């Protein structure tokens, strides 16, 4: 049995119309903000592609495997920069992934509670240092330091073509890779720390009760349950390294050629854009730089989406298993 409650005219809210419109309005405004963000992403893709149109029609996909970059002669090819990007970010990821994951392990499992509260924020502060300051430090302090160490590395590891004859300046692919390593480590460290904290306590306790050592808990329980998350952390770090323009531009030396040796100068796509864009010589030069930006955009989007897909699958697995 239901009781009908009848409101009198006086008890109704007085500004009902204003209220109804208020609801619609705030919803519309918030929705509009979302649409602006969506439109911005679409506009970025559109603008870059139209900017690169001239280079698309002139070079096509041949741009990707041509290795001449001569703005004066209207010849452009991206191969040395694709190579430089792959080298710098590859070395950076190779160094940063184990270190970052180790820091994540330390902060989530090993460190005493009080130290966690200190070291965690300090590692995050490393991520807050602007790239231009890291680059300034890189070229004025790290590069001379590296230059003095390169002959030693060359003597010991010279049989590997990567460690070729050292240069005299210190601005090299190797220095750039080290700077990128410093930038990527805090990203991987903080993601993997959060990741390891989600591993159920019972699993770890079970392993410890069976007599596993700390390392065996990590090897047998923590890393297998979070493997996909670690991969996506690595992808996010790689995405950051690929797109870094400024710090790389400061320390890589801006070479036009691809070298096997890490101690030679080189250039990455992002850094080439940052250095040559303000003084581009002609329309085709602009279009070619836009073309590089399109490549960066595509790689960046793909890596980010991959990272999201992997980590989402990971969190679904986690939710189901609970």
């Amino acid at each position, binding site marked *: 049995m239901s009781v009908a409650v009848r409101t009198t005219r006086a008890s109704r*809210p007085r500004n009902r119309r204003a*209220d109804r419109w*208020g*609801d619609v*309005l*705030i*919803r519309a*405004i*918030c*929705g509009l*903000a*979302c649409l*602006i*963000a*969506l439109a*911005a992403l679409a506009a*970025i893709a559109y*603008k870059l592609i*139209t*900017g690169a149109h001239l280079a698309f029609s002139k070079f096509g996909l041949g741009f990707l495997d041509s290795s001449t970059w001569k703005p004066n002669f209207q010849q452009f090819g991206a191969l040395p920069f694709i190579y430089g990007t792959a080298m710098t970010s590859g070395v950076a990821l190779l160094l940063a992934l184990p270190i970052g994951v*180790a*820091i994540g*392990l*330390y*902060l989530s499992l090993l460190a005493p509670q009080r130290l966690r509260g200190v*070291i965690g*924020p300090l*590692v*995050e502060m*490393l991520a*807050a*240092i*602007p790239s*231009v*300051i890291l*680059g*300034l*430090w890189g070229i*004025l*302090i790290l590069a001379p330091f590296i230059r003095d160490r390169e002959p030693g590395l060359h003597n010991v590891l010279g049989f590997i073509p990567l460690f070729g004859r050292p240069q005299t300046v210190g601005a090299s692919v190797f220095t750039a890779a080290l700077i990128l390593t*410093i930038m990527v480590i*805090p990203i991987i460290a903080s993601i993997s720390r959060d990741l390891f904290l989600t591993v159920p306590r019972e699993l770890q306790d079970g392993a410890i009760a069976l007599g596993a*050592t700390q*390392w065996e808990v990590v090897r047998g329980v923590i890393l297998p349950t979070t493997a996909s998350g670690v991969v996506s952390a690595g992808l996010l770090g790689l995405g950051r390294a690929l*797109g870094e*323009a*400024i710090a790389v531009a400061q320390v890589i030396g801006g070479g036009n050629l691809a070298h096997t040796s890490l101690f030679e100068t080189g250039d990455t796509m*992002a850094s080439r*854009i*940052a250095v040559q*864009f*303000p003084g581009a010589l002609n329309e085709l030069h602009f279009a070619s730089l836009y073309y590089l*930006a399109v490549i*960066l*955009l595509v790689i*960046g*989007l793909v*890596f*980010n989406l991959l990272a*999201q897909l992997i980590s989402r699958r990971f969190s679904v697995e986690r939710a189901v298993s609970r």
Partner: protein
Amino acid sequence: MSVAEFDPTAPLTPTGNLRRRLIVSRIAVTGATGAALAAVGVLGIVVYAVVKRGASQLSIDFLTKNPPQFPGPGGGIAPAIVGTAVIVGLATAIAMPLGVLIALYLTEFARGSKFAALMRTVLDLMNGLPSIVIAVFVFGLLVVGHGQSGFAAAVALAIIEVPLIARSSQEVLLLVPGHLREAADALGVQRWRSVLGVILPSAMGGIVTGTLLAVARAAGETAPVILLCSLIRPGVHVNAFSVGTGLDTITGGIFIASEQADPYSQARAWGAAFVLLAFILFTSLSARALLNRNRRRLSG
């Protein structure tokens, strides 16, 4: 194996296989600790280098004077400080309302919907875009056919800030207790009134600190200001809308000085780096402290 052989007073020392496993474990733990210390060490080395070379530059003149017209000692970075403040302020004025409104839509009006999931993906993608790509986009949008301006750089920085602000605001809005919304609903309060009068104010602290973090990030961005407002006139300027000329910025100045061999401009760059780093570390540390306090208050 007889009972008599068991000696309870013998010390418990691992032998053989167990010993090897413990050593491996010890090595792994030492390695992880070493990695953490190495990261802190690198932070220390970089900060020390900046403080050592930059702090000696610092003086009232350095903060309030123009750089010298011709290469030489002395002078300050006043135009760069003002320019960075104007550009970052403008960018935040654009990005903060957008970011907060997006977060409101996702938490209050579309929670759990397909659109919210799409939007979150888009925000993550925007967050992952290299700033150089955003700078090139804004160049094509605002600079081609018009000329450089501080406004163009502000738009680029706003695109960088929006996902950061939206993400952190969303986190705080999700922490606003459900019973606040229910209480407002039970009193017959209209949705828009409860959003503006109840939900937003209780999340305000978190939103402000999220915005501070975004400001710290934007102040350190270099690629956009190099591409979009690097043509500068001498002297302090505040007009971000004058098309054709850019505004001097701290990060732009450091980048240009690091490409030159002039020791005096390098000295000024270290000073500028010190000012910037001090601002960024102070802002992000205090924002983080505030954020923790807010989170505790909201969830506790």
